[in-house]
């Protein structure tokens, strides 16, 4: 004992294959957090609802007819005929068809928008937070400026100027400055994470910056990022519907907002001509997906804050009150 430390390292005999790497990645990023998140009822419900939408977008859109005028008798009430289960508009379009066929583009929009917003935010926030110095100042100033430009008006102006029709592009357009607030939050997270001892250890060992970012920092950001992905997605839903409702985005792409506009303006749903259902159905569609996204973000928040205190074994030293928190302030609450 008390002997000498030998600093000779024996080379590892174990080759980490790509397959194993992938499996590790899957386990670390998908499986484990997924398991924790799944435990929460909210994630379950949110996920299921979302799955329904995906189903609508894929199978539904494939099988069900596209909405055109005069495909059904005009002004049918919901549950009246089998061929138009949710009724039809004043020009004979099947409402269910309209709802279903708005789904694929909506899903594409939220996917691209969400990925874009969180992706850019993570990159910028992480680099700024980790590097510090001039890089930090530059990036932070940049995101500050982007954050100060009001989201919706900017998007509106750009939409008018560019008149985009591709849902993927629209998604990115909508989040064109949404990422800025996120980037700031991520940056402060990274600032804290950076001080952790395991990061210092990696740095001392001479690990490259990318490696540290990838192995030490980003995994700890993931839950937070996921939560905000769901929030960003919800923002895209609300904004896109709003823009379509206002008629700013070109009507060539189907969207529930357009249905709302139709119902409100043309069918005179308000004036009690019995056209209320035309309003309600897109409303339900919108709320459904928004609900799913909120539930997901709240459920995923659990992964971020696993502060469930054990009430028994080994925790007798715990001096804090027994608390089981469901939501914390960690997630940005963006309406």
């Amino acid at each position, binding site marked *: 004992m008390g002997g000498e430390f030998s600093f000779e390292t024996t080379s590892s005999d174990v080759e980490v294959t790509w397959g194993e790497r992938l499996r590790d990645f899957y386990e670390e990023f998908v499986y484990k957090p997924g398991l924790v998140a799944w435990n929460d009822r909210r994630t379950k419900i949110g996920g299921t609802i979302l799955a329904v939408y995906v189903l609508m977008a894929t199978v539904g859109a494939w099988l069900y007819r596209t909405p055109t005028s005069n495909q059904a008798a005009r002004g049918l009430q919901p549950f009246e005929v089998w061929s138009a289960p949710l009724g039809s508009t004043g020009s004979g379009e099947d409402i269910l068809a309209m709802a279903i066929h708005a789904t694929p583009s909506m899903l594409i929009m939220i996917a691209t928008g969400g990925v874009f917003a969180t992706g850019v935010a993570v990159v910028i926030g992480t680099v700024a937070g980790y590097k510090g110095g001039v890089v930090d100042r530059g990036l932070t100033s940049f995101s500050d*400026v982007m954050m100060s430009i*009001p989201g919706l008006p900017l998007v509106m102006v750009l939409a008018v100027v560019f008149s985009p029709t591709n849902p993927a592009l629209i998604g990115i357009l909508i989040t064109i400055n949404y990422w800025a607030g996120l980037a700031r939050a991520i940056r402060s997270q990274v600032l804290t994470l950076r001080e952790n001892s395991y990061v210092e250890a990696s740095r001392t060992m001479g690990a490259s910056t990318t490696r540290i970012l990838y192995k030490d920092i980003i995994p700890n950001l993931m839950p937070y990022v996921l939560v905000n992905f769901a929030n960003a997605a919800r923002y895209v839903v609300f904004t896109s519907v709003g823009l379509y409702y206002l008629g700013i985005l070109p009507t060539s792409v189907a969207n529930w907002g357009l249905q*709302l506009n139709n119902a409100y303006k043309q069918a005179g749903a308000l004036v009690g001509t019995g056209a209320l259902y035309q309003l309600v159905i897109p409303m339900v569609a919108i709320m459904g997906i928004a609900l799913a*996204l*909120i539930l997901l973000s709240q459920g995923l928040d659990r992964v971020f804050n696993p502060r469930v205190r054990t009430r028994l074994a080994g925790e007798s030293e715990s001096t804090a009150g027994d608390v089981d928190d469901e939501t914390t302030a960690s997630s940005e609450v963006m309406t």
Partner: protein
Amino acid sequence: MNYYVERTIRALLTVWLVITLTFGMIRLLPGGPLVQLRAELTRQGYSAARVNALIENYQNVQPDQPLYVQYVDYVGSLLQGDLGQSITNPKSVASIIGDALPWTMFIMITSVVLIFAIAIVWGAVMAYREGSTFDMASSSVSILLGSMPFYVLAIGLVVVFSYKFQVLPARYRTSPGVEAGLSVTFVVDALRHAALPIASLVITGAGLQALAMRGNSISVLGEDYVRVARLRGLSDRRISTRYVARNAILPMYTGFLTLIGFYFGGSPILEEVFTYPGIGYYLFQALENRDYPLMMGIFLVITIALVLSVYIADLTYGKIDPRIRSGESSEAY
């Protein structure tokens, strides 16, 4: 001291950058406002010289001068408060905005204040009664309401309250014929017209903020100092206000100003649904009518308002959280 100076410089810098961006958008975007403006005017039959003069008038931009001269001119006029001339509206952009802005701010500020008042109390009670039926029910209601875009609820409210029950007006800021002024009639009228817009913002927004407050409160309740405070014999009342609420509110503060910004941005939709002539409404109209000067002017004003609120947020956060004041972390986020 250093911090405040830095923040001020940053704010001014941001504003200047946005002005430049706006200028860029006006001048340089392909198919951008200025190009279309020119095209329209030419289509209307004006001679080239006349078109130039008109554009100069509308936009404070002289089309023939080199870029930097145009830029300086533009900024110069801005600083003098001249935002150009509206194309569709006989009034100047500045006066349109001056008329509309207070009304938008009225709705927004009232809404945000209400939201936070409700959210703080509700969230605190939810946290206090964590796990109870009240808590579960509140959480569910909050989530449900939060999944509704405010304009959807707005439409719904209009259907119910304006058309079905005819209780509250569906459009405009005031009833026609009511004189502006500090009379009771005017105030009541304005409030009645603002009721539904405010309601749609508050009802959809309060729930999620309450959930955030709930989360914060639960975290705080688990902190050591709350336990020590109990042991020290402090009353529940004192603990819930000075210890729990006071600390749980801290993270909400930035959310408060973020929300103002968000609603500012969302005002076009809200005001369109209610035909409520605030700056959002005019922005939308300007977009529709391709009234570029007005559009850009409002855009600029909203942006400046946003920069201001972030600036105020950063500066005043130190007032409520003593830890920040000592220069711990220089960001309110």
